[in-house]
């Protein structure tokens, strides 16, 4: 699990964004480096929402930012609308960036505190010299109205005068001023209360529909991701674990890590869930994640990066890195011993040779 592979990629010509074998390393003193993202591939069709889930440090934000070339990835391709962004020069990239926008987690710190809302929201247009001052204001008025804010009442105010939910609305309005095609939402609701969170999620869905947006939605909250996404990619320590359609991933998680994540959030709201829809009964014997720390992204484990925490890990997991492969309709997993799906080719080979995978084979079958 937690492997590389490109099985989850679909028709290249139909994708709005296609990321191939993305690698992002951050250098450390002494020739060491942080392997933040190591060989991640995915694509997003126009109008689709891809959810990226995982714990902190799994590389989901770095992946989202590498798509925007913030910073440029170490290697790999980011093909947006048939153009590889990693190959573009500074000015060409700047031109292209108008079509790619981002919404950050902390709306208060992502809005410059000394500017008025009017300045903040019209700035993208001013930079590109679009329209006259009054045209820009009209556009800001219309966009703020779409996020349920009144330009005449809020335009002259500054960010600190607003609640965190209102600041997030302003950020959304600003991100959409240039009619982007792809918006990367990096934990946009994580800092919000449940009631405000619901408002912002609904707003994002409305805006997506109205403006024909394609979204990459990053969050550590599985239920939020399920609500907004068409497809979900689960990441662990810079690798892909599982990719599937949202409903399928949650009813039939194949990767042990996906299951562990879901059990953690179901455990949190056991009383509210009641079981319907999600086929998950915790099994204390097979579900006990090894209570170890998140492995280091400076010296990641060999083979599958999840193996040090995985309850199903066998010898082969330390030796051979699993690659993504298809286990169902639009369902891809990178694991030697997935839940409710056949073993990987490598694990099967080993089992046939009478290796250590025998017991796991029995378990996966049962």
């Amino acid at each position, binding site marked *: 699990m937690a492997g590389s592979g490109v099985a989850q990629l679909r028709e290249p010509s139909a994708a709005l964004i296609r990321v191939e074998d993305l690698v992002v390393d951050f250098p450390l003193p002494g020739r060491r480096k942080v392997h933040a993202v190591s060989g991640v591939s995915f694509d997003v069709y126009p109008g689709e929402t891809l959810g990226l889930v995982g*714990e*902190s440090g799994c590389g989901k934000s770095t992946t989202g930012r590498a798509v925007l070339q913030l910073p440029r990835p170490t290697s790999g391709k980011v093909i947006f609308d048939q153009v590889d962004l990693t190959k573009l020069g500074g000015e060409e990239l700047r031109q292209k960036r108008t079509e790619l926008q981002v919404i950050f987690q902390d709306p208060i710190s992502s809005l410059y505190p000394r500017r008025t809302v009017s300045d903040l929201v019209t700035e993208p247009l001013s930079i590109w010299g679009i329209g006259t001052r009054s045209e820009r204001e009209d556009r800001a008025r219309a966009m703020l109205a779409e996020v349920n804010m009144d330009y005449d009442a809020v335009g002259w105010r500054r960010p600190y005068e607003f*609640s965190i939910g209102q600041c997030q609305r302003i950020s959304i309005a600003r991100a959409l001023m240039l009619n982007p095609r792809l918006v990367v939402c990096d934990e946009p609701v994580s800092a919000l*209360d*449940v*009631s*405000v*969170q*619901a*408002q912002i*999620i*609904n707003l994002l*869905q409305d805006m997506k529909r109205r403006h024909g947006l394609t979204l990459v939605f990053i969050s*550590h*909250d*599985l*239920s*939020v991701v*399920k*609500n*907004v*996404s*068409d497809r979900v990619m689960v990441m662990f320590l810079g690798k892909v674990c599982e990719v599937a359609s*949202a*409903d399928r991933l*949650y009813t039939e998680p194949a990767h042990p890590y996906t299951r*562990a*994540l*879901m*059990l*953690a*959030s*179901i*455990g*949190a*709201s*056991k*009383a*509210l*869930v*009641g*079981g*319907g*829809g*999600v086929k998950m009964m915790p099994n204390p014997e097979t579900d006990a*994640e090894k*209570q*170890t*720390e*998140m492995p280091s992204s400076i010296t990641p484990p060999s083979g599958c990066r999840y193996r040090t925490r995985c309850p199903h890990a066998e010898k082969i997991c330390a030796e051979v890195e699993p690659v993504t492969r298809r286990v169902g309709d639009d369902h891809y997993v990178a694991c030697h011993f997935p839940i409710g799906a056949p073993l990987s080719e490598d694990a099967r080979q080993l089992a046939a040779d009478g290796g250590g995978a025998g017991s796991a084979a029995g378990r996966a079958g049962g």
Partner: protein
Amino acid sequence: MGARRRVREVRPTDGPLLEVEDLRTYFETRRGLVKAVDGVSFELIAGRTLAIVGESGSGKTVLSRSVMGLLPQRNVTREGRVRFAGLDLVGAPEHELRELWGDQIAMVFQDPVTSLNPVVRIGRQITESLRHHVGMSRSEARAAATALLRSVGIAEPEQRLRWYPHQFSGGMCQRIVIASAIACGPQLLLADEPTTGLDVTVAAQILDLLQRLQHERQMSMILVSHDLGLVAGRSDDIIVMYAGKVVEKAPTATLLSDTRMPYTEALLRSAPRLTDGSHRRLPTIPGAPPDPSDYPAGCRFASRCAYAQPRCAEEEPPLRPGAVPEHTYACWYPVGTPHGAEALELNRAGGAVG
């Protein structure tokens, strides 16, 4: 820990461990008097877990600090009664409170990284209360700290005692904070948003840990959170707060199955759930909480409530009992009653609710 010398022995009482009666906590600010906690009463039976739930600004954090007596000295009015194991905490001199803090009542704060001193080795931070309250020697305290670290699931505790907080992850820091909170074997543990800011898997581990420790040590616990879903599986009783007041209070199962207060219902509904299909439109609560220095007359939730009728804006609903005696709620048109259904129908017909 047989040879413990307690500075003060708190006798167990027959009644509830903690009784809070009509507690009010007001802050004088430039905007006026902020009524953060405005007449809150509850009891906590020994060995149980009470969850306090509400949005930001509902007063839940101030309530937990007010119960403990951890408030600034100036510009604060604190009235009402807080009795802990027979001791009156409101008006108690600080030196008496100091004997209780960390010893009988301990607190775990939201941000584990800032609640540890960054330049002091964690071993000393954990043993501080043991040395102070129990009067342990250095080596006794060291042994106790090792055992504590092990009990909160930190491997190689002997070496880790010499580490500084920055060498640990957020989840590990929270374990260390918990270890130091339970060091003296408190009777009451207050946990204020103990898992906010932690990852789901880590949060689940921390809550499991708290539950286990509570069980093993027969502690009582107050769990403060904005997430009703999170505390639902982990508490015996729940208090829902809105605008400084308790609006509903019930045993957890009753609160979830027999919700009466429209605010509780709205909170439950607005969280996305794993069991719902994707792209489900989330029900939201319109508007924003009222200004804490200028509450409206009548029910404070009325302007955002789907059930609200003219009476709600005029008369403040008192807390009244539900089907079981432990269940109380403050609403004129409660959810799940003919009265409430009628009110909702009336509002729907009038187009007030979408």
